[in-house]
């Protein structure tokens, strides 16, 4: 009896979570007339026209390309900077290390809006405005500290004896770092990649301000799709579906390590 009740609650909650996703998907497969017309749970005449429009119209597919390019640059820079930094924080004690480490996290406490103006003016002045690198670097301000924190937690869980053993075996540091240390921590790197990706992919404010006509990201295009004939519901929904997919893919690859990542790697 009890088992049955809890199972039904679970099913109901699952449906509740799934409903908006389903509705998004169903809208993406309908024409505008169908969407604003009579209520129906299933699309009356399913069509892929909305998706076709996105893959044919440069405004849409370039927006996806723009988003993906600055997200990729951001993720790469964040990992390239945070991996060595986290290694040093986990292995060495130096003057002010704890303060520096905490200061890194305080960067996360500032809302992105605070940095809008300085970034905009600075990037305009040095000609970085309206390039993928502009958004990527601005996002690094938030993703690098987060990455260092997550990675440091994971790296500290690897005993220093392992480093020493590789030394005594006669291996160079480079060999140890790339053949042993990074493979051992691949879960941690996957989780960090996920957090960088997710921040950069959904962040709207900095992305909108620092991108011009050449580099409009998808989140910006989506919020501006109002034409003379009103909102293009179906097209927006299709873009929404395509926006969700990369996130789902990344989560799928790091699902095993994700919980530990949310605890910043500090679960034994």
């Amino acid at each position, binding site marked *: 009896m009890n088992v049955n009740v809890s199972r039904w609650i679970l099913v109901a909650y699952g449906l509740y979570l799934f409903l908006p996703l389903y509705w998004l998907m169903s809208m993406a497969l309908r024409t505008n007339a169908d969407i604003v017309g009579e209520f129906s749970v299933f699309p009356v005449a399913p069509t892929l026209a909305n998706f076709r429009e996105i893959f044919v119209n440069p405004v849409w597919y370039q927006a996806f390309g723009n988003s993906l390019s600055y997200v990729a640059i951001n993720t790469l820079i964040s990992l390239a900077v945070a991996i060595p930094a986290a290694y040093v924080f986990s292995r060495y004690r130096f003057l002010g290390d704890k303060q520096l480490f905490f200061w890194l996290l305080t960067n996360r406490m500032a809302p992105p809006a605070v940095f809008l103006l300085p970034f905009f003016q600075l990037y305009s002045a040095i000609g970085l405005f309206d390039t993928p690198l502009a958004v990527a670097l601005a996002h690094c301000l938030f993703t690098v500290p987060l990455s260092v924190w997550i990675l440091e937690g994971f790296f500290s869980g690897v*005993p220093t*004896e*392992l480093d*020493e*053993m*590789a*030394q*005594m*075996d*006669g*291996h*160079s540091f480079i*060999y140890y770092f790339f053949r*042993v240390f990074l*493979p*051992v921590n691949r879960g941690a790197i996957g989780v960090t990649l996920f957090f960088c990706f997710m921040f950069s992919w959904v962040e709207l404010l900095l992305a909108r301000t620092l991108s011009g006509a050449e580099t409009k990201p998808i989140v910006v295009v989506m919020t501006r799709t109002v034409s003379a004939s009103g909102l293009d519901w179906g097209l927006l929904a299709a873009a929404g579906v395509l926006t969700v997919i990369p996130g789902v893919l990344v989560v799928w690859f790091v699902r095993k390590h994700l919980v530990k990542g949310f605890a910043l790697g500090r679960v034994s």
Partner: protein
Amino acid sequence: MLEVVDVDLKGAEPAGEGFAHTFLPGEITVVLGANQSGKTDLCRLIAGLNTRATGRVWLDRQEISQLDSRRRSVSMVYQAFINYPNLTVAQNIGSPLRAQGIELPAREARVADIAERLSIQDYLGRFPHELSGGQQQRVAIARALAKQARVLLLDEPLVNLDFKLREALEVELRDLLHASNTVVVYTSSDPRDAFSLGDQLLLLDGGKKLQSGKPIDVYRQPVDARAMGLLADPCINELKHEAREGALRPEHVFFADDLALRGRSCIAFELTVIACETNGDESFVHGEVAGAQWVMRCDGIRRPRLGSRVSVKALEQDVIWF
């Protein structure tokens, strides 16, 4: 031959105050000391790892104190089971050979040979986390042996294993280590290791050298109560007799009616029994003698009544006077 000179294990003494010790090849030197006595620091100093200990290290008449740990002919086995988690057992054992630039066929032959000596030849394709604790430590020992270094440091390698496994591996280790002409340094806090493994014994206390020599000699003539205590199981019994201070080992205290005492000159004491424990084979009787805590170890099951006063004796020759 490995020599350490002017060693200060706590890094707190002024230079020139440290101790010196020489380790000979082909012998196992057991370094015995309590926790925090500096055993691990001594190993790390010899291996060239980060440590608070200071001192100079000479290997075969060449000073290696400044040499990077990568270039020292030293290998080490840790107390925790440390292996490369992402490499198979075979790759783990072959790791130092790979660093030496030995080609794959030769490497595989050496790995197979060493794995067989440590009876882990069936697990070569597995990963360390798929093995039991004892097998993981065997892999670590195999890797240390594979390097064929002139110095092998074993830092309490068996302390995390259960005791049956420990005894089995200890016997194997002794034969394995004696077969090579290596300087073997084996740290432990268990006096039994000193006798079962050690050709030489080095006693450490509070970062300083207490005494060294053959285990039996150190046992017979400890320099002071601390040295004697390190080799006693569980601890020594201090006594005062005719204005002299001395100590007795637990196994040298007998009940007054013991046959071993007949016709020999003895000293008698009165012991108030506080607690008894037995494991069937031997019994430990804890008590008080003239204000001092004593413990006696005797064969078989002995259970004197708690609180009773019993007469105990010790042979005069067994008392160590300081």
